[in-house]
């Protein structure tokens, strides 16, 4: 461990002295174009000698940075997640020749320009706040990571240029130019990935710093970037961004569906809600695996940090996490099940029993996931239980149980989607019966195997459970997903449609459930962002640079939860503002000419006010 006395507060100039000539030139250019950064680095050096911290009266420096950093991160998740969503939709539209996918992709790319500017704005505010409020820390990080700052700036320039070409060239690059437009979309996501992983290395270095050996500035920055939690966080955030993008699109569609007044609008936004929910759910399925890998790396890096998170005072955050994920799983499945009931007329009776079965399994799993290891109990209750650890239900509190139920919930959600896919269709292939029997058998075997491994996990050393049993559980679930998806696709290719899917008939609660899912994802990101950050406890850089400010303590969980809620609320307001601004033009186009008394055909009241697709119908 490096002691505080050994900390190096070298200047940017010192850092640059170690660079080769060409790199110096690059640095000079970057500083020329980014005076703010140059001032930051240089200023930090001067300030670090005299001032270690500054405070903000009233709200406090830590709280202010907390709110701004969280907003920046959520917005970044949005602007990195939505292009993935848009590109996938554009690709699907190009392959299937269905124009509605292209229209959907374009509708969301339009949001990116305003969202991108807002994200950059919060990023700038965060940078200024960090430089002003935490000069000592920023001087250290600048010294360590300065070359990566340049890479980050370069990526930003490339991302911005690509985004402009991608958005403004949409209509121009149709027809035979479409493949180039798709390539631009790919580049956009590639640069976005770079923009995400570079600052991730700064944040993960703070949590899991590594010993940085001798070398030039680039070599040292690269060594610092390759810390143990960098890639687990990168993968986790990448998947989470897809989930956020999908569910925010779903929420947008949900709100527009509730406000829709014409049949066409209802059909379009109902379909958009389905696509958003689908992408959100498919991103959500591998997310627990990525989270598990991250926590495994945290434990392996530092047992103390792992215990603080999973067994210590932050452990309660994981019970809240279970609740939020539970609501998300229930909300996503509820939306699928309502889709079967309302979009495929006559299928309600057919799927009633399987839906009930799935719901019961989900609730049982959620009950296990939400059961804490040590229970909240009064003195009298604890005396009766023999402590805060229940002799029977206490077994649900450990990882073996949590891993098992999360895998089962993923399986159930996947099967909800398969059921939705198959609803209203009749397989005609000769091998359909055999395929369905094999799939049913595999599903039962997989479910039993996951449970058996989970129970067995209590009777083997932890390392055997972590290295083999948990991995086997994940592989079993992935095996089901990768075999069932193409098999079902083959079955559906030759299937005949018995009932056409009807869009625009979903009840209004479907719109609300889409909004709920998005809010749950934002809350989850705020919650786990806090957990990851506060696992450093009283260290700016874990074990290297101690937090010696007045705020070197962990806030009470209730206080932290209030800030998470505030962050979620503020982010929802910002997103609503972005959506509102981006759709102003559409509204203007939809308005009848001033002074005109002509009614727009098909317009009635919005769905949320009891309006219906056509007279004689009513949305519940």
């Amino acid at each position, binding site marked *: 461990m490096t002691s505080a006395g050994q900390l190096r507060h070298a200047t940017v100039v010192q850092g640059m002295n170690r660079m080769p000539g060409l790199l110096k030139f690059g640095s000079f250019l970057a500083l020329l174009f980014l005076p703010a950064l140059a001032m930051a680095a240089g200023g930090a050096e001067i300030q670090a000698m005299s001032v270690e911290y500054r405070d903000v009266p009233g709200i406090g420096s830590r709280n202010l940075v907390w709110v701004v950093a969280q907003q920046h991160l959520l917005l970044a998740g949005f602007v990195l997640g939505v292009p993935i969503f848009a590109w996938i939709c554009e690709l699907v539209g190009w392959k299937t020749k269905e124009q509605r996918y292209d229209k959907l992709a374009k509708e969301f790319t339009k949001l990116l320009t305003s969202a991108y500017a807002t994200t950059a704005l919060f990023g700038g505010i965060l940078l200024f706040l960090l430089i002003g409020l935490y000069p000592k820390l920023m001087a250290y990080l600048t010294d360590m990571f300065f070359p990566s700052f340049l890479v980050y700036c370069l990526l930003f320039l490339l991302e911005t240029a690509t985004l402009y070409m991608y958005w403004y060239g949409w209509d121009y690059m149709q027809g035979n130019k479409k493949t180039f437009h798709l390539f631009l979309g790919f580049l956009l996501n590639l640069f976005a990935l770079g923009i995400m992983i570079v600052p991730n290395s700064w944040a993960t270095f703070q949590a899991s710093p590594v010993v940085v050996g001798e070398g030039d500035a680039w070599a040292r920055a690269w060594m610092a970037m390759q810390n143990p939690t960098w890639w687990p966080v990168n993968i986790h955030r990448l998947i989470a961004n897809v989930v956020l993008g999908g569910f925010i699109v779903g929420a947008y569609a949900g709100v527009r569906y509730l406000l829709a007044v014409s049949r066409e609008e209802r059909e379009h936004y109902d379909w958009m809600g389905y696509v958003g929910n689908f992408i959100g759910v498919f991103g959500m399925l591998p997310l627990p695996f990525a989270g598990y890998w991250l926590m495994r790396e945290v434990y392996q890096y530092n047992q103390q940090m792992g215990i603080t998170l999973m*067994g210590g005072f932050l452990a309660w955050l994981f019970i809240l996490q279970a609740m939020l994920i539970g609501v998300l799983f229930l909300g996503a499945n509820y939306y699928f099940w309502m889709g079967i009931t309302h979009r495929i007329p006559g299928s309600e009776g057919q799927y009633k029993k399987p839906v009930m079965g799935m719901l019961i399994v989900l609730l049982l799993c959620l009950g296990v996931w939400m059961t804490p290891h040590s229970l909240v109990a009064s003195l009298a209750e604890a005396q009766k239980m023999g402590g805060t650890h229940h002799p029977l239900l206490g077994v649900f509190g450990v990882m073996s149980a949590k891993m098992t139920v999360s895998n089962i919930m993923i399986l159930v959600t996947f099967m909800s989607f398969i059921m939705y896919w198959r609803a209203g269709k009749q397989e005609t292939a000769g091998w359909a019966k055999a395929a369905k029997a094999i799939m049913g058998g595999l599903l039962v075997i997989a479910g039993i195997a996951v449970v058996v491994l989970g129970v067995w996990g209590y009777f083997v050393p932890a*390392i055997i459970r972590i290295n083999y049993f948990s991995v086997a559980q994940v592989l079993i679930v992935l095996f089901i997903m990768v075999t069932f998806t193409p098999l079902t696709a083959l079955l559906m290719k030759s299937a005949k449609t018995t009932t056409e899917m009807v869009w625009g008939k979903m009840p209004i609660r479907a719109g609300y459930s889409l909004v709920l899912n998005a809010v749950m994802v934002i809350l989850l990101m705020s919650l786990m962002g806090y957990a990851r950050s506060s696992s450093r406890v009283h260290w700016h850089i874990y074990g290297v640079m101690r937090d010696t400010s007045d705020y070197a303590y962990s806030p009470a969980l209730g206080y932290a939860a209030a800030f998470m809620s505030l962050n979620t609320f503020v982010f929802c307001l910002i997103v609503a503002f972005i959506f509102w601004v981006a759709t102003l033009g559409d509204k203007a186009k939809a308005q009848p000419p001033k002074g005109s008394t002509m009614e727009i055909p098909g317009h009635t009241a919005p769905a949320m006010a009891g309006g219906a697709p056509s007279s004689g119908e009513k949305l519940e």
Partner: protein
Amino acid sequence: MKSPIISGAIILAGMFIFLKFLLPLVTAPLPASLIYLYLALVLSGILIYGTMSAPSLEAMMGPIFRFLSGKGQTGAGQMARLAVLVMFPLLVGWQTYSRLVPSDLPPAENRTIHPAPPGEFVGLSNPYPKTPENIMMGKGLYAAYCSPCHGANYDGKGPAAPGFNPPPANFSDPGTIAQLQEAYLFWRIKKGGVGLPVEGMPWKSAMPRWEEELPEEFIWKIIMGEYDGAHQSPRTWEEEEE
């Protein structure tokens, strides 16, 4: 067809009876926090299933809405509605009052059983080889110093255990020492209850500070004996070589 409201009420009441009265017949009673959590899950399940389709929504919520709106109600129906409208806020008020009224009972705890160990105890490994002699010595030391509380069978049921609240840890439970590394046990045994960090509050551990009585060698050997006697293995990052 049975009314979904009645079915839902029966399921909720049945679950409450099971959790509150039937389960304690075979195990320890559940705390209220857990019972409410499970009931909330059951209620959400009932609502999800009941609102899936238009007919089920009408069957579940229709009578409730009609009753609360009071349309076309006369006599007993009207009185029942009034009674509900008066009783519901009173119930909420009573609940709020009983939560806020000063009481001599301590508040419910969200105790952190496994606080993070101090840095100097992280990453330590048992310096003594796992030989039959060392394990036997550890078991002997355990019998002398630990078993009065933690029990001869490593199950937390020693002769002195009934005197403690919370009771001594049950090492044979896979949720206790099997989840921890040897270094963690070394810290807990060496520093005892008084050595718990701030995040371990409220400090409710009668564990003695054994560093004042036992040399470190004895503590490491006790740990070895504990794991062997409880048929558990310490948490490690490396698989043991055969």
